[in-house]
């Protein structure tokens, strides 16, 4: 995150709307995220107006990324520019609602871009076409020109939020494992990308096997497992400086790290004499507290968003199952109840659900369940689906899918928690072990 954005994010006090304010609809324009969308909401997003010559090269691309964000969510469908009757050439001109109604655009997004030095200024407004009214105030974002994609994501997040009533997830990043080469000699690197696969940056070289990177709560640091010493150890890296260090004292094998919601601690598995248990490690002084001490495999711990509980997997009852315990350790309660094996539990940032990998009858599934284990729902099925990670708003999961056979290779996918909108995330190499950041600031 070299180009940290000093977002001004200022509300432009109503941007002096000249159009007539119509009577508000009794129900605001709204699309429900959780219901499973059968008919995406049609919207129009005319290419943003370039308000000066230097803005021209950004206006079209910025609009494209915005449209890709919204349509990629599966909740919205774009009515292409070719079908538009009205053209938006002036950001402040009155909206010709009948023209947008005629093409059945329920939502209209208008925007303007200007460049001043290396600063990019983006304004946008959102309209409820059939109610003849603006939805919320106009917004303006300011950032450096090289962060133009983030401006699109910011606009998309604002639109998504106004139309769904939920926070968005587009201005976010994913850290993952880039994989290359044959199956028995994979070269792996920790890589960072925007949530949509853009701006890939490699954080490690391929000399050592690396696994399962995860973000700190503010997305400035990552924690991951590396074989740099010949044996798996957990490392902490600042993604700006790319400086890394082993976290605390790890006399034995260490893996499966994850940050606490306040970023001060990390939970991980340490394996000694073949027995893997869960430890809580203080990030600043490396001090560790042992949380489990069963002879079973206890691994893949993940905090609840309030920091009070930890969900993890254990084979203490025979097979891999999911358990919840207090952050101070002690008794654990098994929550997975169905047939098969359950692993890689991850607590939703909303606190309401656990995502997991399920192995059943030789197939792998990504699924979700309530935190008490009820209402299990399997979202995917394949030869090998693994390692879900939550979008910042808890509505979408990314995971990786590995294909079968001698040429089998992993790719990153996303799916809604309704099980709809399965999509491949394009990465320059094979990709696995995605971990989604929080919304960027």
């Amino acid at each position, binding site marked *: 995150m070299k180009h940290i954005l000093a977002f001004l994010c200022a509300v432009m006090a109503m941007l002096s709307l000249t159009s007539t304010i119509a009577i508000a609809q009794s129900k605001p324009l709204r699309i429900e995220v959780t219901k499973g969308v059968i008919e995406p909401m049609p919207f129009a997003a005319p290419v943003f107006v370039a308000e000066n010559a230097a803005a021209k090269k950004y206006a079209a691309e910025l609009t494209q990324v915005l449209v890709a964000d919204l349509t990629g969510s599966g909740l919205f469908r774009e009515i292409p520019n070719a079908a538009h009757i009205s053209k938006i050439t002036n950001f402040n001109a009155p909206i010709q609602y009948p023209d947008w109604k005629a093409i059945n655009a329920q939502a209209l997004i208008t925007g303007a871009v200007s460049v001043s030095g290396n600063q990019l200024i983006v304004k946008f407004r959102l309209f409820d076409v059939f109610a003849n009214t603006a939805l919320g105030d106009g917004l303006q974002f300011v950032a450096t020109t090289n962060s133009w994609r983030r401006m699109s994501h910011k606009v998309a997040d604002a639109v998504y939020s106004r139309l769904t009533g939920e926070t968005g997830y587009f201005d976010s990043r994913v850290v993952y494992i880039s994989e290359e080469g044959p199956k028995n000699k994979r070269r792996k690197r920790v890589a960072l990308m925007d949530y949509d696969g853009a701006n890939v940056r490699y954080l490690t070289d391929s000399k050592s096997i690396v696994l*399962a990177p995860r973000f700190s709560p503010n997305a400035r640091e990552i924690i991951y497992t590396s074989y740099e010493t*010949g044996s798996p150890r957990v490392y902490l890296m600042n993604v700006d400086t790319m400086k890394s260090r082993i976290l605390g004292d790890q006399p034995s094998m260490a893996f*499966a790290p994850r940050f606490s919601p306040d970023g001060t601690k990390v939970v991980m598995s340490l394996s000694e004499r*073949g027995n893997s248990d869960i430890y809580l490690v203080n990030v600043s002084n490396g001090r560790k507290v042992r949380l489990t001490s069963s002879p079973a495999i206890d691994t893949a711990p993940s905090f609840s968003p309030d920091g009070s509980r930890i969900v993890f997997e254990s*084979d203490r009852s025979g097979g891999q199952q999911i358990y919840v315990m207090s952050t101070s350790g002690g008794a654990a309660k098994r929550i997975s109840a169905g047939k098969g094996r359950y692993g890689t539990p991850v607590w939703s940032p909303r606190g309401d659900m656990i995502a997991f990998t399920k192995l059943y009858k030789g197939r792998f599934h990504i699924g979700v369940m309530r935190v008490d284990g009820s209402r299990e729902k399997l979202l995917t099925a394949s030869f090998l689906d693994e390692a879900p990670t939550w979008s910042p708003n808890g509505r979408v999961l990314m995971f990786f899918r590995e294909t079968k056979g001698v040429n089998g290779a992993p790719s990153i996918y996303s799916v809604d928690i309704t099980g709809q909108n399965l999509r491949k995330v394009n990465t320059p190499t094979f990709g696995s072990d995605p971990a989604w950041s929080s919304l960027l600031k």
Partner: protein
Amino acid sequence: MVNILVKLSAAAICAVGLTACDTNSPGGYGAGGVVGGIQPGSPSDPTSLAYFQQTIGDRVLFAVDQSTLSPEAISILDGQANWLLQSTQYVVTIEGHADEQGTREYNLALGARRASAAQNYLVSRGVADNRVKTVTFGKERPLEICSTEACWSKNRRAVTIVRAGLGS
């Protein structure tokens, strides 16, 4: 220090062309062990590395999701223990591996369990504890790459990699 030894020995074996080499790899991954500065020798010479790898066997295999030693595994480990009791100049690292039918982190833990099962057995047969290290690779380094039991059964393994000890 260990890493340096591995690199030197890997280079030495490459030079005489006895086995395929991956100089980037920190260990053998079961593709054949390495010994600091010496040649594997003849499989019929009971003190040779070739004898350890080929005649005794440098690896034991496991059932799906298990780390219990089979009778075959025990007989191989008996041979390894005897060899190590004779050849005290060597130390070993046991690499535990899993097949691809499991999640990564669980498989790391499972690989650790398998390596440890072999380690515990060698120690129980009199090999000094400090001569036997373990490491897990989970499902990161399969030996065979097909997605059927024919390959998976060979990937569920604990491989004993012989290294030059501190005294040699």
